[in-house]
């Protein structure tokens, strides 16, 4: 009985311990930014891994997101009270403000977050991180900073790719579902488009990128217990990152909108 009562307290304490460890690790990372030139090559490699290699999956998911938004808008407009060309504004605003950064964030959590945790976690359990330290490297500068820096640069770019593909998908579906012409679609798009919305999407991408890679790196860095531990950390990364993205989405909307 006592154990049942203590368990939530234990979870609560463990959460704040983890948070403190994360903050300490991130402060170490930000302090190591001064040696960025030493790890420039690794950052470029990570930009390819995180950014370039993720373009196909981001294109695909955002394309379908745009298409489904268009089809669902068409379903709502069936009443006839709303003109069909409005679909351009619905798709445009949904994609730029919410879907492109959010879908990119969630897809990248699975693709990049899990990969980073598995990589760094495996390095931890096979003593490769100890080996780095024994060779006088700072593992935080070596492993975490290039990944976070690469994500900070590449995530906004991926959001731009997702914006374009989402709108293209929306246009394609609007043409087929509602017989909306390209001109009509973009008329609707321009009517409600505000440049700040596009900037806001990029800001979200930046925050999501930093959050996903830093959480994934932290979980990898603190992995214990062999292959099972790596699996546990990877799962935990996906769960925590998805939750953080949704939370950040709300916080950023409150701040910037």
């Amino acid at each position, binding site marked *: 009985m006592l154990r049942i009562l203590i368990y939530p307290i234990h979870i609560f304490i463990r959460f704040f311990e983890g948070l403190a460890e994360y903050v300490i690790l991130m402060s170490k990372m930000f302090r190591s930014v001064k040696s960025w030139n030493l790890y420039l090559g690794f950052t470029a490699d990570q930009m390819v891994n995180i950014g370039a290699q993720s373009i196909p999956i981001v294109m695909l998911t955002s394309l379908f997101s745009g298409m489904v938004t268009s089809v669902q808008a068409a379903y709502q407009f069936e009443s006839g009270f709303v003109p069909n060309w409005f679909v351009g504004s619905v798709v445009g605003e949904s994609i730029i403000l919410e879907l492109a950064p959010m879908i990119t964030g969630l897809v990248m959590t699975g693709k990049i977050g899990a990969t980073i945790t598995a990589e760094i976690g495996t390095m931890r359990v096979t003593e*490769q991180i*100890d080996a780095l330290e024994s060779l*006088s490297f700072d593992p935080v500068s070596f492993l975490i900073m290039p990944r976070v820096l690469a994500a900070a640069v590449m995530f906004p770019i991926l959001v731009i790719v997702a914006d374009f593909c989402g709108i293209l998908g929306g246009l394609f579906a609007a043409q087929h579902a509602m017989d909306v012409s390209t001109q009509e679609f973009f008329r609707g798009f321009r009517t409600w488009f505000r440049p700040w919305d596009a900037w806001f999407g990029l800001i979200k991408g930046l925050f999501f990128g930093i959050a996903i890679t830093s959480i994934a790196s932290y979980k990898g860095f603190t992995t214990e217990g062999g292959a099972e531990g790596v699996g546990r950390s990877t799962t935990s990364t996906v769960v925590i990152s998805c939750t953080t993205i949704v939370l950040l989405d709300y916080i950023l909307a409150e701040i910037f909108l």
Partner: protein
Amino acid sequence: MIEVKEIYKSFGSNNVLKGISFKINHGESVAIIGKSGIGKSVLLKHLIGLIKPDSGEVWVEEKLVNSLSFSQLQEVRAQCGMVFQFGALFDSMSVKENIGLALSKLSKMNAEEVDLQITKSLQEVGMENSENLMPSSLSGGMKKRVGIARAIAIKPKYLLYDEPTTGLDPVMTDSINRLILKIHKHEDVTSIMVTHELRTVFEVAERVIMIHNGRIKFDGTPEQIKLSEDRVVQQFISGDSTLLEVEA
């Protein structure tokens, strides 16, 4: 000179080291032995600050390792090469990149000098022409050799080996033992190895420190440990699991 003074270390409720003290002079070849899981590797990692003690002091030369800043610790680590139990090679890098990483990023050597040092280190461990191999294509013995090449490439004053021959076949064990001995003689280094392989102890070490229950049970030469009358030491040397049970 390396000196360890009254080191205590616990992981949760598990008290691993309970007041370990010893001094290792320059040029010595020391084997730290004891049963598996007794804290030998933990002790070795204390020497270069990979693990900090709960209490006690670790001195390398004139520096108190457990109180150094990261940049000061880097200076200490630059004098120490560590060979890990399973090699701990960076698996996304080739053999050449593994050995040259520290040289190219942290030393003042130019690319040509780095290449030359990599070749020399690989020759030293008998792994010529393996620069472009990836760790995944190496056998256990080859990984250990590359691990040794990576450690000696930085020209350390101290070489720390964590279980250098564990898991290897007898021929490969002999080959690694000879390599450790050769490096110890030719490179003028202090060698500290953690092992439970008695063959390695008797072939390579000049001094043996045995750890038991978190404390030093024996400190002497390989000849002296053979003659020790301590039952725990005798059991370890003979490998007879029934020795203490019979006594009990």
